[in-house]
């Protein structure tokens, strides 16, 4: 005897998502020359991975704690600034690879610690008070933006230098693509898989999946749920901060740099089905690919990237019309 029902629904969502990607590819092939198609697809993937790094923590935290952390974009920014600070703080002779690695790790650690502090100090008193949570997380976001503005100035910092091996470009089907963006895709994919394994294979993962449904019962089984909440929240902000630092070599760091990403992350989570991790992972890539395709069409025909943002809003509306609970959401 094997269970089938739930698995079928899941497989259906995956198939629909796959067909959507196929559709996008067909549109691409119809509209662009092959060299452009390759670049658009890679660009969609790398954008999708950045969206994923912000959205992953948000969606897991939303499932477990019923809190939509609107400060997640600020943690993305915090990661970029932490990266800069670590870059600058290391002694002059440090090889660039070491600097870069230290900045990545340091950004994640900074994001994690700041997230833990936020959960314990600011969020804990506000559980079960959703309106206060919105005000607090938005407020904290503003405060962090203003803080970096006060310390580093309003202009932002020039992009971090990446390791020479990643600072190259390569050619796919005649299209030029930056190696560093492939690095982002690899980092994102590794985290996507890593988080998935954490959720499916570890005790912490079992506790998180159970806590999403009934955290009181988890506690009655002898598990300190509060500590799990803090840990999960901190992991989410750590991943977002890591995302900010991986983006720093081409975005730089500036006040408010997380805001656009936050809005897209929210759209991703809604499309994926709010608290479904798999949904968030898949939706990140769909949104990235949709956005990249629309951006290229927009640039090619209208000479402006305006369609990029519009396209993902339309995509969200379309998904919600067909499935009000999102692609992988449960009724």
């Amino acid at each position: 005897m094997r269970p089938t029902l739930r698995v079928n629904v899941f497989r259906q969502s995956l198939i629909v998502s796959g067909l959507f990607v196929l559709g996008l590819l067909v549109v691409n092939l119809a509209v662009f020359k092959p060299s452009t198609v390759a670049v658009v697809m890679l660009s969609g993937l790398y954008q999708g991975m950045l969206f994923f790094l912000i959205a992953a923590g948000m969606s897991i935290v939303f499932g477990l704690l019923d809190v939509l952390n609107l400060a997640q974009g600020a943690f993305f920014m915090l990661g970029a600034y932490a990266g800069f600070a670590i870059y600058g703080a290391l002694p002059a002779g440090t090889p660039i690879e070491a600097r870069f690695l230290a900045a990545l790790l340091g950004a994640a650690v900074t994001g994690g610690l700041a997230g833990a502090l936020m959960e314990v100090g600011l969020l804990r008193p506000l559980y079960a008070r959703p309106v206060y949570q919105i005000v607090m997380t938005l407020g904290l976001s503003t405060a962090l933006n203003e803080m970096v503005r006060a310390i580093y100035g309003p202009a932002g910092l020039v992009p971090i230098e990446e390791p020479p091996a990643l600072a190259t470009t390569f050619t796919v089907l005649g299209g030029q693509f930056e190696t560093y963006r492939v690095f982002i895709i690899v980092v994102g994919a590794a985290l996507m898989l890593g988080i998935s394994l954490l959720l499916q294979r570890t005790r912490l993962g079992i506790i998180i999946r159970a806590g999403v449904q009934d955290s009181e019962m988890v506690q009655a089984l002898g598990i300190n749920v509060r500590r799990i909440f803090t840990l999960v929240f901190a992991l989410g902000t750590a991943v977002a901060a890591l995302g900010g630092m991986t983006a720093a070599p081409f975005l730089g760091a500036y006040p408010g740099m997380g805001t656009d990403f936050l809005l897209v992350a929210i759209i991703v989570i809604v499309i994926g089905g709010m608290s479904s991790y798999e949904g968030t992972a898949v939706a990140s890539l769909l949104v990235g690919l949709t956005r990249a395709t629309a951006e290229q069409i927009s640039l090619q025909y209208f000479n402006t990237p305006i369609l990029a943002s519009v396209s993902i809003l339309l995509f969200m509306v379309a998904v919600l019309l067909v499935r009000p609970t999102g692609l992988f959401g449960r009724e």
Partner: protein
Amino acid sequence: MSAVLTVQDIHTFIGQFHILEGVTVEVPDHSITALLGRNGAGKTTTLRSIMGLNPPARGQIQYRGQALNGRKPYDIAQLGLGYVPDYRAIFRQLTVEENLKIAERRPGDLDRKRQFIFEIFPDLEKLYQWPGGQLSGGQQQMLAIARALVPDNSLLLIDEPSEGLAPVIIEGMMAAIRRLTAQAAVLLVEQNFRVASQLADRYVIIEDGRSVHSGTMPDLLASPALIQKYLSAA
């Protein structure tokens, strides 16, 4: 026979509602004590008070000589209390195995108990990889009790195990619960008086948030007046 659990005159509020207004319960070791009383009397709230989920504002709860008052639910559970709530609280997205695994308090708990659990609830063996959400009501009830057996609990709080189950399933459930007294004491809430009277060694009657009567089950069965007054569906 020493008491595993002593609940002494507890008062519990939910919001501003004074739900328990003096409940006293004693649970002797290796025996089954039934909490009886009409719907809404306060039986579930008594179990939740013991677990720290609705902590009492007044009164004492002692478990093996330790005060439970002021402790958090996870802390209370870790002392050796297993809770089986009336809604069963099976994690729907988790497999049967994961539903059991999450109850481990030390690594290896489930490995040590698996055979015993399969012996009591043979159904769970073939359902081991099924998601909890796809089990029938009776299977979920078995899993909920099995989950409380994974760690070395010495007190089990079981709320309405027979509710909504077919008679033949109830028989099996009763046999299983009877076997639990080999390793633990049981505080059982049971609306089905036939089930309660066949299982329990002792009883406590709760009425409007107060414990009003207690004694041995044979004594209760010998006094139809008591049953009529507090337990008949009037």
